[in-house]
């Protein structure tokens, strides 16, 4: 169960960010933003690897006392960042990976929609149906009890 899920554009501005409403939203924004430091580091370290062999999953970006921040980067340098409660020890690497894959697929669906302009924010509260599926998927990841 994730407490915050963010999609970040290649230029590092958030395309989509959502956190559990009970928590301090601002804190997660800061956390996700700061985690981009590590994402950048990992991407530049990965740059040497062959593109086709590249692992999209970046693993644990950094732990904090209360949360673990995981990262994932698509080939077009769109980043997914997921914040998980540290107390949630049931979430293993494999689960995180599969969650990212689901997120990636859902994001690809959004991109495939001809009414979506790449680079636009994916509105989390919009009535636009194109983002609704994505939003629902994120919701399912956030309430999912593992």
């Amino acid at each position, binding site marked *: 169960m994730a407490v915050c899920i963010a999609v970040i554009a290649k*230029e590092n501005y*958030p395309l989509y960010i959502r956190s559990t409403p009970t928590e301090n939203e601002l804190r997660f924004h800061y956390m996700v*933003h700061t985690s981009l430091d590590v994402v950048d580091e990992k991407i530049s370290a990965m740059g040497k690897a062959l593109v086709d062999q590249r692992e999209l999953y970046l693993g644990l970006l950094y732990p904090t006392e209360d949360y673990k921040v995981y990262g994932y980067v698509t080939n077009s340098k769109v980043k997914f960042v997921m914040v998980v409660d540290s107390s949630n020890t049931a979430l293993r690497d494999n689960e995180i990976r599969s969650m990212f894959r689901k997120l990636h697929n859902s994001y690809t669906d959004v991109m495939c929609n001809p009414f979506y302009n790449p680079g636009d924010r994916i509105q989390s509260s919009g009535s636009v149906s194109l983002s609704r599926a994505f939003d629902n998927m994120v919701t399912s990841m956030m309430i999912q009890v593992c």
Partner: protein
Amino acid sequence: SLGSPQPLPPGSSAGDQNLFTSVYPTLSQQLPREPMEWRRSYGRAPKMIHLESNFVQFKEELLPKEGNKALLTFPFLHIYWTECCVSTSEGKRTRGGIGLKMSVALCMEGLSQIVCSCLCRCVVLSDPLKDSSRTQESWNAFLTKLRTLLLMSFTKNLGKFEDDMRTLREKRTEPGWSFCEYFMVQEELAFVFEMLQQFEDALVQYDELDALFSQYVVNFGAGDGANWLTFFCQPVKSWNGLILRKPIDMEKRESIQRREATLLDLRSYLFSRQCTLLLFLQRPWEVAQRALELLHNCVQELKLLEVSVPPGALDCWVFLSCLEVLQRIEGCCDRAQIDSNIAHTVGLWSYATEKLKSLGYLCGLVSEKGPNSEDLNRTVDLLAGLGAERPETANTAQSPYKKLKEALSSVEAFEKHYLDLSHATIEMYTSIGRIRSAKFVGKDLAEFYMRKKAPQKAEIYLQGALKNYLAEGWALPITHTRKQLAECQKHLGQIENYLQTSSLLASDHHLTEEERKHFCQEILDFASQPSDNPGHKIVLPMQSFAQLRDLHFDPSNAVVHVGGVLCIEITMYSQMPVPVHVEQIVVNVHFSIEKNSYRKTAEWLTKHKTSNGIINFPPETAPFPVSQNSLPALELYEMFERSPSDNSLNTTGIICRNVHMLLRRQESSSSLEMPSGVALEEGAHVLRCSHVTLEPGANQITFRTQAKEPGTYTLRQLCASVGSVWFVLPHIYPIVQYDVYSQEPQLHVEPLADSLLAGIPQKVKFTVTTGHYTIKNGDSLQLSNAEAMLILCQAESRAVVYSNTREQSSDAALRIQSSDKVTSISLPVAPAYHVIEFELEVLSLPSAPALGGESDMLGMAEPHRKHKDKQKTGHCMVTTDHKVSIDCPWSIYSTVIALTFSVPFRTTHALLSSGTRKYVQVCVQNLSELDFQLSDSYLVDTSDSTDLQLVPLNTQSQQPIYSKQSVFFVWELKWTEEPPPSLHCQFSVGFSPASEEQLSISLKPYTYEFKVENFFTLYNVKAEIFPPSGMEYCRTGSLCSLEVLITRLSDLLEVDKDEALTESDEHFSTKLMYEVVDNSSNWAVCGKSCGVISMPVAARATHRVHMEVMPLFAGYLPLPDVRLFKYLPHHSAHSSQLDADSWIENDSLSVDKHGDDQPDSSSLKSRGSVHSACSSEHKGLPMPRLQALPAGQVFNSSSGTQVLVIPSQDDHVLEVSVT
């Protein structure tokens, strides 16, 4: 002796103690010298190890008891030493020699081994204390044996130990199982590995323990409690941090052994062991990484186990631990190593900073007033939990313990330590490029400074962080940081900055309504307070206050004439949460006199403006400067480059017109928080709107201006003033302009259709652009009538007056008065800058085109062919221009307009003969797009010879003629007496457009005049071909005879009187030349093909010519042409002279020169010139001349006749050509 665990597997020895003592030095020295391969169970990789042993004297109690768990102090091998004398054949025994072969000299017994073979366990060491090769040899054998057995025994015991340990672990679900007990067992294993220098294996033992414990905690959290774990849940009483400076923290170890350890104790001890092993393994950076994980994990575990922890205790523990780990790592690495591995350690630094900060806040060290008594109590409690400093760091000046104690001791000391840590962390983050993290720590620091009432120090950190968030478009952090910055700026008294930040916050939708209102009120409060410096303006960017959405001109083309009124309506979207009263909204306008005078015309301007007059402004994308959305859309255009010489395409491509916008450098330094240096432009031209209340959301504001000077006005700046605060939009983009023009009155006359047709009524549109002139009552246009163009006055003609914007303002009946010379059109009254439009019908009278042709060209034998030729030359209509001079009321000069009318028809005529009977054919070709109805065709002889009759052969009086089609008319010429040498004819036909129902006026008929000359037939030429005598048919290749009969049909006529006529004895004769030509090469003319004959000028005079021709093909062949020429005597004055003989002899030449059998006047002339050119060398010589007889005078009665030629019998050649 048994002792503390040392990296030695112990063995015990029994037997002759003195003997053992004597060999011991060599033994202990030699045993570790050679490595042994250590094969291991469970598929673990074999390792080379050096064995070293500790020997103790055998005692009964050393023998293992059941349930022994002490691997480390366990004797692996028992050796019995005895001296024996051996007599060998080789020599004497020495005292020091050991062993009789068969007796047990040295008994080595693995404890767990069953004694099965004594022999293999007995080793004889010969003369161990001598220095001989034999001694050496026996030593080597002994040592090898000892090593093997020692290792074997060790492996065996280790395996057994491991098995036991696993068994114990499997029992962990049973009640009464103790983790601490198990811990000690597995640690024993770890010690052994450590002793064997197998640190990796040792580490694995601890990691397994670590994982096992973690799993228990997790399970406990999930409700699956192990009761031994409850012991670890005792309240935390001590938080003195990790101790990593000793290899083994015996104190903690014993507490575990005694089952008294707390969770922190266990974790600390475990980590200290892991740390030690990792450092042995040269992996200090893993220590740092694991440390951070451990610290996070411990905090989580305490939470999970609901262990009661005094506030701040964990912070102390974490802080101390972080510093301890860092100092431990620093202690074993050099500076360069540390600097290149900051990425691994910076997390600990950051964590320590964070913890110190929260301790500071907790203990009241960050507040302005310093700690209160409650804070002090808390501090004392916290310090008590630290206990006394441990002896190993007691002498270290910068020990974590001392640091923490000092930091908590006073406000100043805390500040010093906190700043040191923060700066170090920021610096480290920055140095490894983790800018965001650095900014985040910086923000904490700013918060600290704000608490310490040092906003001047906080500002730079807030600005730095904000810039970072703005650059990457993170809305919530932007809002939050901006809010902090606003407070900072307020404290600093930076009024402009504060107001600007406030305006940004007031428009920020991420804030609550209340917060937004607060910041808006801050601006309004400032604006309303009386300024000590009147006239001082605070200029702020408008963007956050209100946005310009769209602009609309009225008139919509944004063109207004001098004196006209222009309205500009703008939509401003107020970003403020409350209605704001604005004293004035001002648009600064830049005026420029338009240099391109053509641009000043209303027409040009109307064409080049947006059609609806609405200009939309792109919405501001203020907080996200990097996002793609803020970039303008690509403006792509096709590009063609053509060669200047032949206009062929050279290159083509797509160009981006706004590449300078797209590829410009992102202005990294632009900060929206700083006053942007917006300058107020003071222009002479302003549009102003006063006292407007801007409601939240869209507001319509209308500016009204009266146009004064002609020129172009560009809207530059938009300002809104609230008290002394001015919100300025420095540039209005896209560029908005309006034009003021002054225009001279103008008159345009143009046909309604593409072209005007002559002969029928056509509509012409008059457009009067009044410009600055006002049409008064009685103003009229005076048209001086052109000849042959009528202006048809229709009663229902109306003039429409349009305003400048093409809106119809009025219409009035047109009064037209015509006199002989002048047509006067009175214009309706119209104000300046209006347009009057009306239509008039004009009629161009059909005028006969110039007299067509001479008689020479008449009487063509094949008129159809001629018709075809003409069609090829094109469809250009004959045009006539009519110039009309118009006097306009606004000018003393007349306007001359030219109207071009096209004649819709083209007419040609032809003379046709049949013997002596003559016919005139007139062909009317309709070149226009319209269909016409033709009626009442007449052909009259204008010369009025009563003798001549024109009998029409046309039956229908009405005949349609369709667009691009032709109609033919034929008349027969009849006469009773001698016909006149020439005939002047006029053809006329009435016509009207086929589509039109009824024409108001009767139309003039279309006329065509022409002249026909020499139309009377004088000679009849008849040719005949006969097969060779005795043959029925002509055959190819055989000669046939050609007989030409030339017959004179009339007596002497007027036309015969020319130079060729000779008179003798009242008989007249003339000279003719005949020529036989076969253009189609069917015949070969043999012998002379031409000749000159003297022809009597008398009726029925006949001349017969014989010739021989040979058919070249079989079939029905047309006869060769026979031509007649008048043979004129030489005349020096005549330019067109021919050497008859020269070309009579030259057949091929004659063929060429008479190729065109249809001479018309123009081609005849050109032929004449050709002749003169090629015969120029003969000029001056007395040459006879040839003159073609006009076609009407010769009738070829055998034209069209064919002769049957049959193929010759021996001609079987078939030509086949293959391509």
